C-alpha cells in the first residue's frame, strides 16, 4: 500500500515529464557543425562540432583596424534546425551601441543566410512549400561588400537590419521523425555568415550577442 502511494504520483510525474519532452522536440535549434573563420588577425571562433550539441558560438573577429591587412574577416556558423511542423527563425541582438560614429557599428557587421541543406536522411523534403530566407538576409555578405559614398564598407544586410526579434527564415516541416532526442540526420542546416572589414575604426572593443529562436511559423503545407 505504501509503495502504491509512492508509485501513483511518480507515474503521473513521469507522464508529465515525458509529455514535456515530447512537446519540446517539436521545434529545435542546435549547432550545425564547427564554425569557421578566415581573414582574422588574433581572432577565433568556438562552437560545437556535434550537430546534437547546443548552438553556443563565440566569435572573436580579432583586430579589425588597418593592422589587419586582410580585406575581410568572415565567419560561417552552421545552424541546425528540426521541427515536426512549419517553423520560423528569428534573431534578436543586444550590444554594439557605440556612441562614436567612427567606431564599429551594427551596420559594419555583414550578416546573411546561405546554403540551406538537408541534414542527413531524416530531413523532411517538402514539395509544396520552400524554405524562405527573408529579405534582405539572403546573401553572402563577403561576396557583396562595396564602398559607400562616404568611403565606408556597406553590405546588403547587416546586424543593423535586426530590429527587435526579426524573422529571417520560415518554411515547412523540417524533420521526418519525431524523436525526443536530437539526431545527426533529422533536419536542416543553414549557414549564418558574419563579416567585418578592417577599417580605420575608432579604437576600442565592441561586442554583441545574438539570440536565434525557432518557433511555430506560418502554416504552410508540406
Amino acid at each position, binding site marked *: 500500500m*505504501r*509503495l502504491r502511494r*509512492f508509485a501513483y504520483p511518480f507515474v503521473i510525474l513521469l507522464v508529465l*515529464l*515525458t509529455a514535456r*519532452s515530447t512537446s*519540446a*522536440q517539436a*521545434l*529545435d*535549434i*542546435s*549547432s550545425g557543425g564547427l564554425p569557421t573563420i578566415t581573414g582574422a588577425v*588574433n581572432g577565433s571562433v568556438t562552437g560545437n562540432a556535434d550537430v546534437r550539441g*547546443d*548552438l*553556443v*558560438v*563565440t*566569435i*572573436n*573577429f580579432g*583586430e*579589425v*583596424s*588597418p*593592422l589587419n*591587412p586582410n*580585406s575581410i574577416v568572415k*565567419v560561417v*556558423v552552421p545552424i541546425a534546425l528540426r521541427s515536426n511542423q512549419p517553423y520560423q527563425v528569428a534573431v534578436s541582438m543586444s550590444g554594439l551601441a557605440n556612441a562614436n*560614429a*567612427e*567606431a*564599429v557599428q551594427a551596420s559594419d*557587421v555583414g550578416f546573411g543566410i546561405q546554403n540551406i541543406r538537408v541534414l542527413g536522411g531524416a530531413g523532411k523534403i517538402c514539395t509544396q512549400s520552400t524554405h524562405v530566407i527573408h529579405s534582405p538576409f539572403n546573401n553572402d555578405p563577403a561576396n557583396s561588400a562595396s*564602398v559607400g559614398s*562616404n*568611403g*565606408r*564598407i556597406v553590405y546588403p544586410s547587416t546586424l543593423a537590419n535586426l530590429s527587435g526579434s526579426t524573422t529571417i527564415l520560415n518554411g515547412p516541416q523540417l524533420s521526418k521523425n519525431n524523436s*525526443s*532526442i536530437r539526431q545527426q540526420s533529422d533536419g536542416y542546416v543553414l549557414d549564418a555568415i558574419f563579416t567585418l*572589414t*578592417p*577599417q*580605420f*575604426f*575608432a*579604437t*576600442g*572593443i*565592441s*561586442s*554583441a*550577442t*545574438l*539570440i*536565434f*529562436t525557432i518557433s511555430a511559423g506560418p502554416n504552410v503545407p508540406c
Partner: protein
Amino acid sequence: MPRSTIIKSLLITTLLLVTVVTCSGQSTTGTVSMSATVSKFVEINSGGAVTLTGNSGGGVTTDGVANSPLAVSINLGELGPSNTNNFVTALVPLKLRSNAAYVLSMSATVTSSGSTANRIGAADVGFGLGTISRTGTGVNTGGTDTNATSGDPTLPANGSVNGTTGRYEFTAVRSNLSAFSSATTALSGPFIMNAVPRSNANGLTVPAFFAVKPQFFENGTTNISVTFTVTAP
C-alpha cells in the same frame, strides 16, 4: 534489502534519467556572441614626387611615390657661392593616416667633411612644414592640426643675415635642423581617417621643406639624414 526499497530506488533512478533526458533535450534558442578589437593605427607614407628648386647640379636620386613608404634621397648639388640662386629648396610631400590622435616627430643628423665653423651645420639647413591638407572621401576634416614649425623656412619672416657674422640664419621657431637633433614634435592633431578601409588612398598631406642658402661654406661634402616618425600616444 526489502523489495519495496528496491522498487523505490528503481523508480527514482528512472525519474532522474527522464529528468536528465528532458534537461539535455532539444532547445528553441541558440546564442552567438561576438567581439572585435580596434587598436590604434598610424602610418606615414610618401605624398608624391619631390620638388627640387634652386639647385646647381644635383637632383632627386630616389623620388617619392605616393602611398609608398617614404624613402627619398636628394642631392642638393652645389651649395657654395657658385650657385647663384637665393635658396636650394627640396619639397618632400608626406602623407599621414591614423584612426587616433597622432604626433609626427622628426630627428635629423648633419655631418660635414669640413673641420671649421664655416662648414655646413644643422643650423644651416632650414626646415618647416607647409600647408596641411585634409581632403578626400573618408578623411576627417574636423579638428585642428598643430604645426610646431614655422612653415616655409625661406620666407623672409623665418630667417635673415646675421648682422654680426654675416651668415644667413634660419631664426624662427623650429625652422632649422638644429632644433631636431633628437626626436622633436613637428606636427600633431586629431584622428585623420574616418571608418574606411585601408585601400582608401586619401589622408592628411603636408609638404616638408628643406632649404639651404648658398654661402661661402667651407668646401667639402655634407650628409643630411632625416627620420620622420608618427605615433599615436
